[in-house]
């Protein structure tokens, strides 16, 4: 048998007997890769958890999982599957910084993972970690370095099958490139890869097979190049079309003489640190979309806060509709409600645990004449949200629903400018496209201006009228 991993008839049911994953079969040959893509909630991560015998209690798996050289195991046999860790199976978890013990040195973490003496050095060299990095504590590592340590563990243990669950989640493009390099290294080393992702770029850069999971079923499965070039299923086509590079371009003209927001000679530095940005000028006309991009830690979010009057710049001025607001609460007050923010974490704008309807009703305290009963249904319709969703709590919504609900909340405040801080980076591509289209529609219909902060340059190219790129601030590790 040449398959390193074969999964047959995998079904996962929750405690109520509902099928979450329905009859999935695939095989990965030795040295091959399978990338599984799909939207959030489609059951991708459950497949990985089932393979590792880590399903949450209450969920039941059926089917067989076979690893090369082992007898076929029942998917319900969690203990048997766990016994295969390290020797046969290795997991590269999502959010690498959270997966390492912050107060343990790198060498010790590697040793605990089963690497011995000289093997540690070999594994570290393979992922370009320096000798002295071995003495660093988990908390001293940047996200990229933590990811390399995790891959070093997988390399060092010699497990033939490596499972990577969303290895590029929340990473900026530069680091995504690094992760792709690391995963390819594993393939060169003769390992088999099972990668779960909703990252377009990662899916497109890995060789081997590509499978698309939708509603718990594999709707498409084939060679990666073929699936990407000509997806056959409707969901596959929507997924491929969600690449911002493929969005229809929109040439718009806005009246540059009427500025909603502008800044002159803006600088900001944390006390005792070199400035994050210096002498920045920006102009946002009414109805315009201004993109701001740059790597993590370059001060994108801080710039947004300065423009919103939440933080005082070290130097320079911020003007709202022609009026300087730096250090002038009296100038901010009458316009406060008109300058709003969309958060990166979709549900962040809502109080956890409180039904959304109550949170919308409370807006009448700040918006004169706002009647949730009258305004809400129309608002929800425009954002294509089901009316029943407002009776839920914020954490009971999916990411896409929560972000649209946040947009509804911001629109209810009747804003002039929305500063959107990575509003879609936590959403999967299809949902990102929907959300962005809705944002653009609303902006055009109401003449709202948007500052779109993102590290996705292709997204900004597709949607922004103009883009400002910030450089990495000095002293921030890659």
């Amino acid at each position: 048998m040449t398959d390193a991993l074969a999964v047959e008839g995998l079904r996962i049911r929750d405690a109520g007997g509902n099928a979450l994953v329905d009859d999935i079969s695939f095989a990965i040959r030795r040295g091959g890769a399978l990338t599984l893509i799909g939207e959030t909630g489609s059951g991708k991560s459950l497949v990985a958890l089932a393979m590792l015998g880590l399903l949450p209690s209450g969920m039941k798996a059926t089917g067989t999982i076979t690893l090369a050289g082992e007898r076929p195991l029942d998917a319900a046999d969690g203990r048997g599957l766990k016994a295969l860790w390290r020797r046969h199976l290795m997991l590269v978890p999502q959010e690498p910084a959270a997966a390492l013990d912050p107060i343990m040195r790198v060498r010790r973490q590697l040793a605990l993972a089963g690497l011995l003496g000289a093997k540690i050095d070999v594994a570290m060299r393979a992922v370009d970690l320096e000798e002295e990095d071995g003495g660093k504590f988990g908390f001293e590592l940047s996200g990229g370095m933590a990811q390399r340590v995790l891959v070093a563990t997988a390399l060092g243990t010699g497990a033939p099958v490596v499972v990577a669950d969303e290895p590029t989640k929340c990473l900026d493009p530069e680091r995504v490139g690094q992760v792709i390099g690391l995963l390819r290294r594993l393939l060169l080393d003769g390992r088999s890869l099972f990668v779960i992702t909703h990252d377009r770029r990662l899916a497109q850069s890995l060789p081997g097979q590509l499978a698309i999971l939708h509603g718990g079923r594999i709707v498409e499965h084939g060679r990666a190049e073929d699936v990407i070039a000509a997806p056959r299923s409707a969901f596959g086509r929507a997924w491929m079309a969600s690449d911002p590079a493929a969005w229809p371009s929109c040439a718009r003209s806005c009246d540059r003489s009427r500025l909603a927001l502008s800044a002159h000679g803006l600088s900001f530095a944390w006390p005792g640190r070199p400035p994050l940005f210096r002498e920045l000028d920006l102009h946002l006309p009414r109805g315009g979309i201004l993109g701001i991009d740059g790597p993590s830690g370059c001060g994108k979010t801080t710039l947004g806060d300065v423009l919103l009057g939440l933080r005082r710049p070290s130097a320079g001025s911020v003007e709202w509709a022609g009026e300087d607001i730096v250090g002038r609460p009296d100038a901010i007050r009458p316009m406060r409600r008109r300058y709003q923010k969309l958060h990166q974490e979709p549900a962040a704008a809502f109080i956890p645990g409180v039904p959304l309807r109550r949170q919308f009703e409370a807006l009448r305290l700040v918006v004169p004449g706002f009647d949730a009963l009258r305004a809400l249904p129309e608002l929800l319709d425009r954002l294509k949200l089901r009316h029943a969703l407002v009776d839920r709590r914020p954490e009971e919504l999916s990411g896409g629903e929560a972000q649209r609900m946040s947009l509804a909340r911001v629109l209810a405040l009747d804003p002039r400018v929305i500063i959107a801080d990575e509003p879609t980076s936590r959403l999967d591509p299809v949902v990102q496209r929907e959300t962005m289209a809705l944002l653009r529609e609303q902006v055009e219909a109401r003449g709202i201006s948007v500052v779109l902060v993102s590290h996705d340059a292709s997204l900004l190219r597709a949607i922004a009228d103009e883009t400002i790129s910030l450089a990495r601030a000095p002293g921030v590790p890659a």
Partner: protein
Amino acid sequence: MRIAPPRRAAGLAAAIAALACLGPLAAPMNPLEQDLMRVMEPPGARHWLGTDHVGRDVLSRVLAGAPYSLGLALLSVGMSASTGTLLGLVAANSGAAGRAVVMRLADLVLAFPGLLLALLLSGLFGGGVLPMLAGLHLAMWPQYARMADATATSTLREGHVEAARLAGFPEWIILLRHVLPRVLRTLAPLAILGTGQAIMSIAALGFLGLGLRPPTPEWGAMISDLLPFLAEGVVQVAAPCAAIFATVLALSLAGRSLAGSSMPPRVR
């Protein structure tokens, strides 16, 4: 079927409240009546939990003591938690100077052993319920203030608070709607543990002749009264101990299920 946590918590709380209100009525005998011919009698048909060193019915005393032990403990904890919450919110919301004032005040109080302050006040004002409550209140508020300050400070940094500020909500509404519920949720377990401590403090003060005076049937005082007679009557000493234990256990269970139900499980 599993009972839903909020209902279970409500059930336990109702049982405790019923004990506090109806306990004295359920007492089969007069809890103060001495019968010197029947001292330290073992449990039997007439005295289910036996009699104490002056011949009083232990079951009646445990039941009649519920409003004193429980009521006063809950009252003192409620007062300290309210003061602590208020001062904690003030500290979290009034900048570095305001926090420094409140927290140094708290440090000052925390420097004294809690019981000593209550003792001091009770001694100065000649004992009685009010000085005892004031003393316990003074000794207990700092821990609630510290917890409230820490929780409020971290909540004030969250996205929903920023979003509310951007929407133009006044600061007091943000404190009331966004911060206070979270603070109360973290204080609840502390208050529940504090109730057990308060029962014991009230007992200690009673033992020293301050606070509640004998022959008031108060659980802590009953334990200290009967401790010298442990060899003759294990059941009699165990009864008030069991009452305190059951109460604190019930309160913690109620608190835990409340804390569990007020935050929905994280949605994957």
